[in-house]
């Protein structure tokens, strides 16, 4: 070792002293002309993929807002982001949020905040009363949290159910039986519960479950199970990584006996094609597969098209999927909240969240919401719906559902 004991002793006492003294060293108050937003993300650990895709888009939008004159109703105040990493562990989301709120004195909080993080944050937000915008949570248990994620029930489950019924009734697909194929983690299980009920109520027989082990390196066995059950449709929430493995397994077994629909990331992420490789992508993505998504490069929504081009050409992001769009949307929602809020007091901000309205057709609406973007009483999106797409051999997507955005009818079963 090159570190001597003396050096270590000095270093160690430094760390100790620092940790003891830190609370008593008050940081200089932030200048009045900046608004501090805390961003607690999973930048490392198992869930790092979400924030690593979204964060650059978010920073780009915030930079743009600042460049265009900041928050005008607050005298052109600039937004300052204060970042934190929860290492994909919900308990640390709570810790970091506490630090951002009490030490960094942020005025708003945001971040990926998946479902488990949302639950872990709830007691801290209730205690410290900090208005918070989650980018991805499917629920919001604290009165202070709003979320852009699809609600489990009226978002994910309802959209998937509606699409399956649409295929059966409107498009005359032969769909009588289903297997629930979903990523076996909190959101996957939650959505599955609701979806299961809804499909049953609509007369579809559930003949089996195929939960995907989220730690597995290969899903061929799960696909063998699905193949042996031979359902008409396989449906459920699938994460991007499980999606890659699931489609790979489908390719391996050359199984096209069922229609696969679900998502979001695992069926519709733009990077799927790249992650699978062109050959496998072409063989499985364009056959009997429909993906749920909140955004599609092919959707006939001008504002969405514009932000995609902008993130690609101006911000030079190399990965533009739903994550990036969702984060960009979060930036715009926060902008509106800050603009319309009477003051920077928490109650005012909370009120402003409740009044958020980005109508359909607004240039700042990046996600596909036919009814626009507003928060309901439960602080989840009023319009939790999403689209369904199908893939084309040239790696483009076509929206097939809902009718408002559809570019084409669903491709018949192969």
């Amino acid at each position, binding site marked *: *070792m090159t*570190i001597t*004991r003396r050096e*270590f*002793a000095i270093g*160690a006492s430094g*760390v*100790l002293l*620092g*940790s003891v003294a*830190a*609370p008593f060293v008050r940081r200089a108050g932030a200048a009045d002309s900046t608004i501090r937003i805390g*961003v607690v993300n999973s*930048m*490392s650990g198992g869930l*790092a993929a979400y924030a*690593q895709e979204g964060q650059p888009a978010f920073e780009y939008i915030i930079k743009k807002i600042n460049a265009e004159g900041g928050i005008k109703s607050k005298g052109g105040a600039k937004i300052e982001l*204060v*970042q*934190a*990493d*929860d*290492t994909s*562990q*919900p*308990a*640390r989301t*709570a*810790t*970091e949020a*506490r*630090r951002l709120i*009490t*030490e960094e004195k942020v005025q708003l909080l945001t971040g990926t905040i998946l*479902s*488990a993080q949302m*639950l*872990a944050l*709830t*007691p801290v937000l*209730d*205690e*410290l009363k900090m208005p918070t915008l989650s980018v991805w949570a499917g629920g919001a*248990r604290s009165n202070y949290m709003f979320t852009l994620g699809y609600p489990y029930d009226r978002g994910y489950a309802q959209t998937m159910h509606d699409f399956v019924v649409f295929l059966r009734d409107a498009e005359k697909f032969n769909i009588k039986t289903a297997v629930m194929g979903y990523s*076996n*983690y*909190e959101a*996957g*299980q*939650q959505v599955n519960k609701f979806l299961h009920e809804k499909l049953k109520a609509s007369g579809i027989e559930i003949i089996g479950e195929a939960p995907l082990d989220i730690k597995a390196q290969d899903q061929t066995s799960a696909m063998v199970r699905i193949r042996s059950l031979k359902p008409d449709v396989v449906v459920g929430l699938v994460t991007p990584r499980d999606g890659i493995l699931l489609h790979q397994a489908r390719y391996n077994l050359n199984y096209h006996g069922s229609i696969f629909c679900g998502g979001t990331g695992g069926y519709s992420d733009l990077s799927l094609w790249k992650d699978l490789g062109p050959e496998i992508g072409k063989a499985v993505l364009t056959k009997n597969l429909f993906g749920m998504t909140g955004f599609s490069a092919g959707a006939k929504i001008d504002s969405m098209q514009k932000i995609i081009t902008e993130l690609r050409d101006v911000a030079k992001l190399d990965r533009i999927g739903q994550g990036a769009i969702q984060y960009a949307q979060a930036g715009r929602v926060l902008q509106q909240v800050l603009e319309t809020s009477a003051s920077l007091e928490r109650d005012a901000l909370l009120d402003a969240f409740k009044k958020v309205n980005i109508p359909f057709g607004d240039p700042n609406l990046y996600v596909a919401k036919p009814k626009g973007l507003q928060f309901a009483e439960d602080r989840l999106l009023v319009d939790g719906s999403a689209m369904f797409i199908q893939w084309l051999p040239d790696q483009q997507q076509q929206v097939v559902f809902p009718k408002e955005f559809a570019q084409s009818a669903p491709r018949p079963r192969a």
Partner: protein
Amino acid sequence: MRQEFYKTLTSPVWLVILVLAVVLPPLLPSYYLHIVILALVYVALASAWNIVGGMAGQISLAHSLFIGTGAMLSTALLLKLGVNMWLGLVISAIISGVMGAMIAWIDFRFQLGHLSFVLITMAFAEMGTVIVEGWDFLGGASGLLLPQDKGDFLAFQFGGGIGAFWVMLVLAIVSILINVAILNAPLGYYLRTIRDNENAARAIGVNILRYKIAAMVISAMLSSVIGTAYVRYLTFADPYLLVSPIIIIEVVLFATVGGLGRAYGPAFGALLLVPLGEILRGKLGGTLPGLHYFIYGVVVIAVILMSPRGLLPLFEKWFSRMRPKAATSK
């Protein structure tokens, strides 16, 4: 030997701790109070683990089951069946104790070697994770959210913050004192004999099964109780934390780096490493992703290379060098 224990009980250090405990928390900002509470949780857990891992030399990775039972079961009993959490704490502790006794019995019955014991307890822990994540009663993968802590003591609520601080302080001290008591009692002597040479212990007629079970049950029940108190403080019963390999890996790390088998070693490790990890993440978490963990890992490696017997022995050596008289009187 008992004398040693009473000497510890009447030590003036307690007065200092009491004064600090009364004066400091109200002055600490909430984030730093939180770090102190976290450190105390891990002091308590590492000390509880030390009873088997350090003294008996049984490196159990199954402790996440006990912590998890204390946390998830008591929460589920309250939310699903309306069982008071105090009662839930007792039920969980008893179940943990039974599981601990079974593991100790398996260890004895099948004469597991050190490494087999590590790996089998690891497999038990993994199985526990899978079961909890697939069992709706315990909340499945989503976990369970406790009602807000309103400070109703009879409902096992301590009002968060300073209340939680006191609960954790008491648990940490109890956990350490149990360590001191065992080390100075015949049980501690037998455990060390078993650890150092199980065959010799058998040859001189030590009832190995009895002491192994005793150590494991005490440690398991203690871990379970700490788990219940911890989840009350967290409010969110998260299976990915409380029943996962993550928590047990951390507990073993703190205990080992602090000084295994010593009464204060594990506590020392947790007191140093928990704040270090939190502060590194706080300061560096917003920069390059992974950097804070990277540095933490480097520090862990450096510390181990510098003091392969644990930090506490190293500090004692420094201390005795500074005060040679204290060393000679020992």
